[in-house]
């Protein structure tokens, strides 16, 4: 049995990892919609979902059931291949893009060393861009195949927008590539590890381990703006502008097919946040210098009080179900916090993933925050901004970074 496991570990481990990742991503997507509705509601002084389960926590589940049970009508005159292919393409590509992301340093479950992520490819960044490049077809095809003028306009807008912003997206990353000298996301993170300076080593500030590097703040700003445009989110959500195009490219989609576009969009938001974290914010590295070992207890310091507060809040909740569920969730959180505190081995392992997911969460929150705050661009403003500001600035960033690196070499 053990020999069999050792022989086929290269096959079994990735399959387990894929299963875990897909399950985790779909759950996170579901609760991201909950978070988005809650946060936007509070920005607009409303309550948000509050009926299904305590604090609306079961709302994603209800939404899921609704999506599955709803009728799925197909409009007449659609192009069948394109109409069915589009949602599958969007969702598959979005989830595939997460496969090359390293979520933490290498781990050793049961003595088998493996990377914390699905695949450790030496061109992972290029693979990500290749997947993003193909992602346009989902939206464009959906718009064209639906046999609807609003859908077609949405599809056209999105193709034009994605072509325009993909250039800036790719060029804004070149600075990071020049500094790291590698396409591997894992090596890019490791290159930002400056033990004694903590967060100053990140590409955003640029004091990486081989002496003073070059700050990539310009690159980051360009990257994040272009990435928001690539994921079709506010303020760049012209492909699905409700007030002009009904719902844009997915007007004619209902039920699970609509849900696939929806999940695809949220998954690409997660992928982009992961990429921003890795390229500019040091991935799984802690923002504190390595010698500050007390900071290893930060996960516990956050989890224990939050868990206690959830218990305290849950006991006084209006419904009986809430009075059972919320203290239960709070107890699990507190127990996890205590476990992170008591077992040194667990504390070590949890550091990388904790910082990685904390940064990704911050980006996701920023996405939602912007949706609650900013109005949509006009189409000509979008094109002007992409071609006349974002693209020249990212090219300037490439030139400046290479000039700096050349000057430092001599």
């Amino acid at each position, binding site marked *: 049995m053990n020999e069999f496991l050792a022989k086929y570990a290269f096959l079994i481990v990735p399959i387990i990892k894929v299963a875990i990742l897909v399950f985790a991503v779909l759950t996170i997507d579901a609760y991201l919609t909950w978070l988005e509705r809650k946060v936007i509601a509070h920005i607009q002084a409303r309550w948000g979902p509050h009926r299904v389960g305590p604090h609306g926590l079961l709302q994603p589940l209800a939404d899921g059931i609704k999506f599955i049970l709803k009728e799925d009508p197909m409009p007449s005159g659609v*192009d069948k*291949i*394109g109409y069915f*292919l589009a949602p599958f393409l969007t969702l598959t590509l979005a989830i595939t893009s997460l496969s090359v992301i390293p979520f933490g340093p290498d781990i050793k479950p049961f003595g088998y060393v493996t990377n914390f992520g699905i695949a450790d*490819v*030496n*061109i992972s960044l*290029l*693979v990500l*861009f*290749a997947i*993003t*490049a*193909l992602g*346009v*077809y989902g939206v*464009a*095809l959906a*718009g*064209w195949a639906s046999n609807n003028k609003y859908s*077609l306009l949405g*599809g*056209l807008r999105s*193709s*034009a927008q*994605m*072509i325009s912003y*993909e250039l800036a997206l*790719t060029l804004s990353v070149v600075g990071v590539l020049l500094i790291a000298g590698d*396409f591997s996301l894992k090596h890019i993170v490791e290159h930002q590890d400056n033990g004694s300076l903590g967060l100053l080593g990140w590409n955003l500030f640029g004091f990486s381990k081989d002496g003073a590097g070059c700050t990539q703040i310009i690159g980051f700003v360009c990257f994040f703006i272009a990435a928001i445009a690539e994921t079709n989110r506010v303020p760049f959500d012209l492909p699905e502008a409700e007030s002009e195009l009904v719902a844009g490219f997915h007007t004619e989609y209902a039920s699970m097919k609509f849900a696939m576009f929806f999940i695809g969009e949220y998954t690409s938001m997660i992928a982009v946040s992961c990429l921003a974290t890795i390229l500019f914010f040091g991935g799984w590295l802690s923002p504190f210098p390595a010698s500050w070992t007390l900071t290893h207890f930060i996960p516990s310091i956050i989890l224990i009080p939050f868990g206690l507060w959830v218990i305290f809040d849950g006991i006084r909740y209006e419904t009986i179900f809430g009075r059972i569920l919320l203290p239960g969730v709070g107890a699990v959180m507190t127990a996890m916090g205590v476990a992170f505190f008591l077992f040194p081995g667990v504390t070590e392992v949890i550091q990388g993933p904790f910082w990685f997911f904390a940064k990704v969460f911050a980006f996701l929150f920023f996405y939602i925050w912007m949706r609650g705050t900013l109005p949509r661009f006009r189409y000509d403003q979008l094109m002007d901004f992409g071609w006349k500001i974002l693209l020249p600035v990212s090219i300037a960033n490439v030139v400046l970074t290479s000039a700096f690196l050349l000057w430092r070499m001599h």
Partner: protein
Amino acid sequence: MTAPVIIFFVLAALAVLAAVSLILQQHPIHSALSLIVVMVSLAGLYLLMGAEFVAAVQIIVYGGAVMVLFVFVIMLLNAGLEERTNFSKLATFGGIPLALALGGIIAAAIAKSSGHLPPPAASGAMSSTKQLSMLLFSEFVYPFELTSFLILVAILGAIVLAQREN
């Protein structure tokens, strides 16, 4: 049959089938989609030969950028079904013999080769990306720069042609 050989035949069959479908499809968008499948399976073949960088760039540039423009233009023109015409005389008497001759030459070339696939380039100390850029910027720098110049001229030409109508 080892795994790489099986993958090679799957990808090659996919590429050929998609290429045939590209010609036979009635609608331009379906043809464009078939062409995307050809490009992506070619990228898979490059990957099989150990050229990861070329494979990724094949998908980014051809599968992504170029084909998106194709699809975009077809959608913008709202092109309908293709009209079939009969074979022209030139195709019957010139095209078919030439196609057969080309097929014969390729078949002969394959038959003459040793029958063994060359081993993929070992990705050892230097990654293939670095090797490629070294070659591109030292040995082949003039052809490389000339090609870029040619592309620039083509872009300018397109702009001039588009501007002339106003």
